[in-house]
């Protein structure tokens, strides 16, 4: 790559930077259109993904973790309802 003159390099640099981000701006608008169109056809927001019919999770591993997290968050609701629960041992 021959040593480009600094001016050209700046022009290309700024030009490409703006060019790419304008292109992304246009992309966002197109995506908004696609997303709107798909919603109109499927009648509702694109659901997560049709769960394949086979979905039994034998491993207790992930359930256990989610259950612990859910329980912990549930308890925050519990504490907010009973402020008298002083936190004695804040480790």
């Amino acid at each position, binding site marked *: *790559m021959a*040593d*480009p003159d*600094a001016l050209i*390099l*700046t022009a*290309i*640099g*700024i030009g*490409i*930077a*703006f*060019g*790419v*981000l*304008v*292109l*992304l*701006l246009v*992309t*966002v*608008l197109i*995506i*908004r259109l*696609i*997303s709107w169109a*798909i*919603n109109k056809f499927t009648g509702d*927001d*694109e659901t*997560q*993904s049709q769960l394949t019919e086979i979905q039994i999770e034998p491993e207790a591993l992930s359930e256990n973790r989610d259950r612990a997290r859910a329980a912990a968050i549930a308890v925050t609701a519990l504490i907010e309802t009973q402020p008298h629960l002083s936190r004695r041992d804040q480790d």
Partner: protein
Amino acid sequence: MDELLDFLGSTGLSAIGPGEGLMILVGLVFVYLAVARDMEPYELLPIGLGVVVANLPLTGLLVSPVDGTGFQESGVFGIIFHYGLSFWNILPPIIFLGLGALTDFSPVISNPKTLLLGAAAQVGIFVAFWGALATGVFELPEAASIGIIGGADGPTTIFLSAQLAPELLGITAVIAYSYMAAVAFIQPPLMKLFTTKKEREIEMAPPREVSRLEKLLFPTIAMVAIILIVPRSAPLIAMFMIGNLFRESGAVPRLTSAASNEILNIATIFLMLTIGTQLTAERVFQLDTLLILGLGLVAFACGTMGGLLFAKTMNLFLKEKINPLIGSAGVSAVPMAARISHHIGQQSNPRTFLLPHAMGPNVAGVIGSAVVAGVFISLLGAG
């Protein structure tokens, strides 16, 4: 008794110079800023400790794997610098994988205009690039490595310097991170100077809800589009978008958490320590360092102004005005710059809630500087 003399000769005390001593103090200042002032602790604490370690003589920690023959000094940081940065340059892309998995593009998708602010705020890169050339001290590749400081993005600065000016890698990276830590002092004066009170009080409607499909399509199409135009930005852009797709897909929670926690934290520890170890006395105590310090500040300032002025110009054509304060967030320095826009906005008008809006240019700025780095590499790199 010659063994005793041998041993005394091998101690650090006998080999340390005033320069190293001063640099150890500089390192400790970084540690103080990170710990006591809470300024960018995740970067400045390991960088500061790296500086201290690098300037303790005869430790063997900086020995690069290529020099040694047979048994290698356990040059922990020499090895990480060589394979992580100067030779393979794989640490910055790995960090971008994690950052992508932490990024939410909704602000950009709900308000695409902000993408332009992300572009405008990269102008600081070229101002500093020309400044560096003007000094006559730096060649084109070095000027690019100094200019990229204006991109206000650590990994991008490291990625570019590692390829174009490895000897400047430590200085440019540390200065970039230091100015990012100090962005709360650099930007507010400029933001108040270049915007009127009325402009600062502009309230923006809360951003619209973005659908999951949009959050999936954007990174996918952006990745392909950007890399087709600037292939040399692929190591950063591809990994960033891959991390983002892990997150937005919701289908691979374990991979998303590995990327945004384990991989990001482990890479950060070793990268930041190693960056710090590049700041040895003879590299720092040169005229160049002062020049780069100045040029870096100019880059940050011009980037901030670029974003502000471009936002004001856009307002001339827009029915629904945008608060120009979000323009300064276009430099990136995620998420500090966005928080500053939000904070200054609230100072002027407590009812403005600019944070979600400022995140748009803030994230766009990351793409902006990665693209500019790609252009520099393709035109100046060994490519």
